[in-house]
């Protein structure tokens, strides 16, 4: 984990048992933790304690999570990860568009949440002087020189392929919505046609994945978008 030990995380969740394990999980991994059991309290704590990261539950008793997120976003760009119960894609997309950095769906594992938190923090605190190379497994994307190498040898991408990889690499570990990708890569009518994106992803996978049929770097988040994975898991498929 590349977390700075002083990072303060704010947990906004009405369930004490969820807060309890989140606190344990974050503290064990070097975070300091403050808790809030509803949106109003959460927004207050966010103002006074200026946390480095906010974990926001969607089902709060006083305010819907998405509304709490919007209020928070009106004055702060602190990284926010949303905890959602249902796997409703539309809801996820909406939250990402209104400023959430990522989401996890309950029930989730601590490792998954930590990875997302890590990615969100890294993106937030990345300085101009930091190494502009994003490395994921065998893949290295140099955002400054706009070059890509796989197992230390340069590979050639088309302009659109590179653009796609560039955006994902800038958000490494975080999900990027279809909409955002389409708008960044295409112009005109094509910006609304997800088929272009699907085909482009296929082509990019052919070039960067060991097995394009079982991608491990460029991950599909069904109904939401794509993610450049920052922690590689062993494959379940032989």
């Amino acid at each position, binding site marked *: 984990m590349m977390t700075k030990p002083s990072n303060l995380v704010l947990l906004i969740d009405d369930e004490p048992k969820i807060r309890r394990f989140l606190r344990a999980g974050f503290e064990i991994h070097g975070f300091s933790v403050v808790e809030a059991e509803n949106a109003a309290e959460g927004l207050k704590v966010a103002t006074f304690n200026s946390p480095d990261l906010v974990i926001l539950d969607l089902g709060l008793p006083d305010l819907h999570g998405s509304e709490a997120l919007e209020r928070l976003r009106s004055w702060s760009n602190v990284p926010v990860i949303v905890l959602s119960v249902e796997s409703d894609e539309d809801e996820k997309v909406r939250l990402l568009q209104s400023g959430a950095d990522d989401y996890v769906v309950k029930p989730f594992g601590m490792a998954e949440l930590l990875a997302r938190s890590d990615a969100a923090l890294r993106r937030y605190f990345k300085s101009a002087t930091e190494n502009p190379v994003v490395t994921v497994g065998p893949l290295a994307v140099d955002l400054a020189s706009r070059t890509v190498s796989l197992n230390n040898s340069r590979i050639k991408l088309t302009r659109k392929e590179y653009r796609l990889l560039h955006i994902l690499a800038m958000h490494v570990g975080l999900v990027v919505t279809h909409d955002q990708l389409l708008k960044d890569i295409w112009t005109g009518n094509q910006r609304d046609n997800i088929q272009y994106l699907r*085909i482009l992803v296929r082509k990019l996978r052919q070039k960067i994945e060991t097995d394009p049929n079982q991608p491990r770097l460029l991950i599909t988040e069904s109904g939401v978008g794509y993610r450049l994975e920052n922690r590689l898991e062993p494959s379940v498929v032989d």
Partner: protein
Amino acid sequence: MADDPSSFTMRIDVLPLALSAGSIGLVTAVLLVLDSMVAASLIPIAYLIPIIFAAARWGIWASTLASLTAIATSDFFFFEPIYSFRVDNPQEAVDLLLFLVVALATSNLASRLRRETERSHQRERDIQHLYEFSKRLAACFTVSDLIDAIRYYLAHTLGPRAALFVASTHGNFESMPESAPTPPAVLEAVAEMMARVGATGRSVVNTPSQDIWLLRAISSETVVHGVIAINVGHGSRDTIKSRTRRIEGILEEVSLTLQRLDIGKAMDDARLHLQAELLRDAFHGTLSHELCSPLAAIQGSVSVIDTMPAVRDDERLRSLTEAISDEVTHLDGHIRNLLNATRVTAGGLTPRLEWSDPRDIVNAAVKGRARRLAAHRVENAFGDDLPLLNVDSGLIEEACGQLLENAAKYSPSGSTIAVRTRHDRGRVVISIVDQGVGITPDDQRHIGRKSFRSQRHQASIPGSGLGFWIASTFVRAHSGSIEITSRGKGLGTTASVLLPALQTSDLATIDDD
């Protein structure tokens, strides 16, 4: 109260004629006794009494006969020459003729009055019956109540002249027990009317007896509930008209009641639907909150413990945390199945279509069931020319996941589960091939039914039987299908999801730059 069919014919009964003739005889006898006291000119007037009586009682034929008899007897007994039909005095002949005219005119008027009275009595009875009928109809709550009311009405007003046919469960129809015996031609017509909605009425002539049968359908907008058949006999046009009017009267009441029942049924349906909706919402709320959040807490907590080096490095402790995790995943799967089932039963399944890569769907399904597949070797192969699918990838992923879970459940640990995705004649086929217990022809018949589980495994393998049903419902919502094949018991099963691959614009060749 029931009318006899024969009264519609122009039959003249002998008894009224004899009685009217007899009454003239009686009056003659009385006059003969009082002969000296009654003036001859008043005698014909005395005869008017039995004539009017006969007209009012027995009708025009009896009174005409009475008039003729009266004129003959008065001539014979009271006009000179007595005991002869001859009339010598011309004045007397004129008197007798005048009397005959008056007698005939009077009897005609009286008998007409009688008919009118009878008709108005009949109308009164009809109205009374209709009134009782509509009172019964008002108390109808179901179509079978309605049929009972019609039965009662027909039996009490038309008796053996009417037959009622009611649609029975298996598209057939049956006649009510007290119905009139119906000739084959009528039965045929009834069958035709039962078969299609929209035919409201017709009339059939029964050739042997020349009887006319009126047929009327009792139907709402979508269903024929029954047919009323009434024998109106073969009387005059008026009789048939009046019969028809009566039947129309019944039918009008019936159709109003049917409309009311339809509205009532719609309201009941709506109420039921609303209740189901409320229940489902409550169920959703309860499931997602009361069950999902403790599960999330357990899963989260165990995952925190799992990250501790002390636990990670101890094989025994790690196997415990993994077991907890597995059970949570398992429970979560059950809850998701229940949620999916309520979603499907609610009819609220509207796929959220989006162009997706079948590889992504299958990979996500395999990854999502990774823990359940851990004991098996999974081979995942894709054809080279896979088109994009315009589907709700979440639903198809869930369907594939259910089939994968079944494959894992019904095949031995260590065996191979092969997942093959290919493009085949305009369809994308995702096949999940296991080396498990296989499927018997008997299972094959029942598979796909909600909650079906083969008898062979109910004791040995846990499950709700919802999985396959959910999978097939999700796939069907995309105009696809699931095929289950097996070479037999113990020889493995192949479950294939077939999805139509729509023609996409030629995107594969798009220029990247």
